Structure formats: C-alpha cells, structure tokens
C-alpha cells in the first residue's frame, strides 16, 4: 500500500513540475521586466505562448529527416524523466532507485545532443552555429556540474539526490565552506546551461550572439511548443537541483498529505526567491562575448574543484 502511495506521489510530483515550469519562467521574466523598468508581461505568458503554438500547423523543411521530428519529443521526455528523479517536494521517490545524480547529468547531455543534432539536420548556417556553441558550453559546463555533485556526494557518501538532501536537511547546522564554493559554481553553471544572460540572452533573436534561439530557428508549432516547454522545465529542474543540494530544508520525508502540502508551500516560497534572484543577476550583469564563455565556465569549474579540495583537506 505504501508503495502505491509512493508511486502516486511520484506521478503527482512529475505532473506538478511539468505544469509549474512555465509559471516559474513567467515569474523570472516578470521580475526581470520590473527590475529593468519595463511593463511586465503576465506571469501566465509562457502558457499562452505554448497554447498558441499547439494550435498552429507545423511547417517542416523539405530536407528534414526523421530525427528532426523526433528531437522535440526526446528532449521533452528527457526533461520529464529528470524531473522524476529530482527531489523537489518529497524525498521518497521510487524512480531514484534506477537513476542517481550522475544519470541526471547524462539525461541533460542526451537532451543537448538531440537539440544540437536536430539543429544541424536542416543544414542552415544558424542552426550549425548554434549547435556548435551549445556543444562548447555543454562540454565546459558538464564537468563543473559533475564536480558539484561529487562534493555533495562526498559529504553525504551517496550519489542519490534524495539521500543527499535528506542527510543535509536533517543534520545539525554546520558551516560548509566547500558547499558555499560549490553553490557559487552551481549558480554559474545554471546560468550557462539555461541560456541566461552572462552567456546567452533568452530574449533576443540577434543572430550573432544567440545560442538557444539559433537552435530552435527551424522549429514551428507543436515542435517549437515542446522545445520551449522543455527549456522551461530544464530551468525548473536546475533550480530544484540547487534546492536539493544547498537549501534542502522543508522537504517532505514522509508521504503524509499534510507533509506534502507543507513542503509544496516551502518549494513555492523558495522558487519565488530563486526566480527574483536569477532576474537580479541577469539585470546587473552584462552579456559576455562568446569567446569569454570558457573563462566564465572555467571559473565555475575552479570553484567546484576548490570545494572538493577544501572538503578533502578540512573535512568540511
């Protein structure tokens, strides 16, 4: 019976993540507009965009292969699977027995490979350009993300995300310089991986600087809707990984409805703060040249490695 409840909670959790992801994106956009003294779009704007796109007829280039049609479903599927193994509300997730944090990095990599292949599939110059940039960013961000996960794994002696956050949340309060370093590194990786401002500007179609938008140029209608939704879900997933590693307090460790409701409230509060934080970072920083991106990500990697070394030496 408890197993059944676990599965029920798991499925509800996935549904909630998929449905709430555009809302979070809307919140970030709204905060950013406020901070930049613009009149903000409605917080529901991402939903409207997705609905509009689903009602349109898809146009696909004549020379596009099956891969091009398949990619949006693969990417969306990878993001939903990732949402299933990240403890956003509850830590008792049946799915996590099959996949740990390293598999999670692999899921993100799968999505990236499909996006890039699909962008190169049609053969336009911009698609290829975007794919190459995306792979460059990914190849630099992935080791940093792995290092960040290793630091948390060293502290809690497990690579399963729910166990890590359970352990960090339940122990007595202690100062972790290693976790502070990795938190900085994670913020940088989050910004780079989700096409946020120091690396990419999600609000522009300016040809020479875009990365994320260049990948999606050939997509339309339902395919584009799925891609946009997957991007929103990716941001949501990343923020939830951050919560699981660095601010795990308030997670439900049991499946009692009351505990789940309370932890959902906690998650909502954390999301509101994190969204405002991302918008603030995006407002105060300027976009880097593409060739400065390796430096930015090398710094993130450095922070993560320093965290690892400090953990090994000081035991903190």
């Amino acid at each position: 019976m408890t197993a059944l409840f676990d599965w029920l909670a798991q499925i509800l959790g996935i549904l909630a993540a998929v449905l709430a992801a555009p809302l979070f994106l809307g919140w970030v956009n709204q905060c950013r507009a406020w901070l930049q003294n613009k009149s903000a779009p409605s917080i529901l704007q991402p939903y409207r965009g997705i609905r509009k796109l689903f009602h349109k007829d898809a146009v696909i280039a004549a020379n596009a292969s099956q891969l091009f049609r398949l990619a949006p479903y693969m990417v969306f599927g990878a993001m939903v699977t990732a949402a299933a193994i990240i403890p956003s509300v509850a830590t008792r997730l049946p799915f996590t027995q099959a996949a740990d944090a390293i598999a999670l990095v692999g899921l993100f990599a799968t999505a990236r490979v499909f996006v890039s292949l699909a962008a190169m599939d049609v053969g336009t110059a911009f698609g290829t350009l975007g794919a190459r940039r995306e792979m460059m960013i990914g190849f630099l961000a992935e080791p940093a993300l792995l290092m960040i996960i290793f630091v948390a794994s060293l502290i809690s002696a497990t690579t399963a995300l729910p166990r890590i956050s359970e352990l960090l949340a339940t122990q007595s309060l202690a100062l972790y310089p290693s976790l502070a370093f990795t938190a900085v590194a994670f913020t940088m990786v989050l910004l780079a991986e989700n096409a946020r401002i120091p690396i990419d500007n999600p609000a522009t179609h300016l040809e020479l600087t875009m990365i994320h938008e260049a990948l999606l140029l050939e997509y339309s209608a339902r395919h584009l809707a799925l891609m946009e939704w997957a991007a929103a879900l990716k941001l949501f997933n990343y923020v939830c990984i951050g919560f699981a590693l660095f601010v795990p307090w308030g997670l439900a460790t049991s499946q009692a409805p009351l505990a789940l409701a309370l932890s959902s409230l906690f998650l909502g509060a954390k999301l509101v703060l994190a969204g405002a934080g991302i918008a603030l970072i995006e407002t105060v920083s300027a976009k880097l040249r593409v060739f400065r991106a390796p430096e930015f990500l090398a710094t993130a990697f450095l922070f993560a490695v320093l965290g690892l070394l400090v953990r090994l030496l000081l035991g903190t």
Partner: protein
Amino acid sequence: MNMTALPFDLQLLNTLAALLLLLSFAMLSQRRIVTLINLLAVQGALLCIATLLLAWRTGAGHLYLSAGLTLALKVIFLPWLLHRLIRKLGVYWDTEPLLNTTGTMLVGVLIVVFSFGLAQPISALASTATRNSIGIAVAVVLIAFLTMITRRKAMSQVVGFLSMENGLFFGAMSATYGMPMIVEFGVALDVLVAMLVLGVFFFQIREQFDSLDLQHLESLKEDQ
C-alpha cells in the same frame, strides 16, 4: 560527518582558511592593480579575524598583539602606502600575464593539490586544533609565488610577495599557534622596511627604464 563534531569557532576558522585560499585565487586572476591591493587588504583582514579567533580560543595573549600588528600593518598601512605609490607612478593595469588566466588558474589548482599532499605529514605531526589548515597555508604561499612569477610589473610582484608573507603567517599560526613575539616583530619590521625600500626602488626602476616592466632588468647590457 566529522563536521558536526567540530565546535563552532573551529568551523569558523576553517571557513576563514577556505576564504583565504579563495582570495589567493582571486589575486591570481586579477589584472587591475588597484583591485589587487584591495584584495590584499581583505586577505589581511581575514588573517586578523582568524588570529583574534585563535587568540580567544587558546587564550594566548601574544596572539592578540600579533592580530593588532596585522591590522595596523597589513590592513591599513601597507595598502595605503601601495595606493599612494600607484597614484604617484600612474600604473593601474598589469600587462597580459605570461600565461593566460584560465591556464594560470589550472596551474593554481594543481599547486593546491600538491601542497595538500605536502602538508599531510606535517599535519599528522602537529597537535594543534587548526592543523588541517596547514595545507591551505602552504597553498596560499605557493599561489602567491605563482602570482609573482606570472606578472611582469614590479607592483603586482610586490603584492604577491606580501600575500606570500600572509600565507607564511597563517601557516605558523595553524601549525604552532603563532611564532614567538620577537620573531613576529622581526618579520613585521622586515616587511615594512622591504616595502619602503621597494617603494624607492619603483621610482629608480622607472627612471632608468621609463617603465615598471621587470623584463627590462633581464638584459644585462643597455644596448640590447
């Protein structure tokens, strides 16, 4: 989870040690000399706080004195002197370092690994509560050394030299709860005099070569 076993002041000391290491890396990557000097002052301030904390923890009176010395010399006087010097000399930027920033950082990480390995047997021998930070102190010294090697301008080399002294001081503190008072006074006086002499040197170098780039000193004859 050995962290929970540690008392809070030790946790704080460990955090300060980690921040010192972080500042060394910031200095390694920084090319603006003004910021470099400010980072040096912050490093001195962290060192002062760590010394005060250790003094409070061990009850050693002379540590309070050396904390005061650190505050006066490394947080206030030397940064002030350096700021005055760069205003007079008009050097605000170092030239491109010999190795690019990312490369230097990676070498820095290797140095940290090396010095942690180097310090492990020393830490095993020491009996102080802060013995784990010896590795960090060695790393700070070696990274400051790297800062000196990769820079061309005399100014940033001097800042590297002072940061090295900070590392040595921190090492002595974590290995044996500070050096004897007389040695500490001697070192402080040495640093002060070295700084004053180097200040005069800067002007001499500039007068001779019209620049503070130390590469000019490498050639033996003037007509080369």
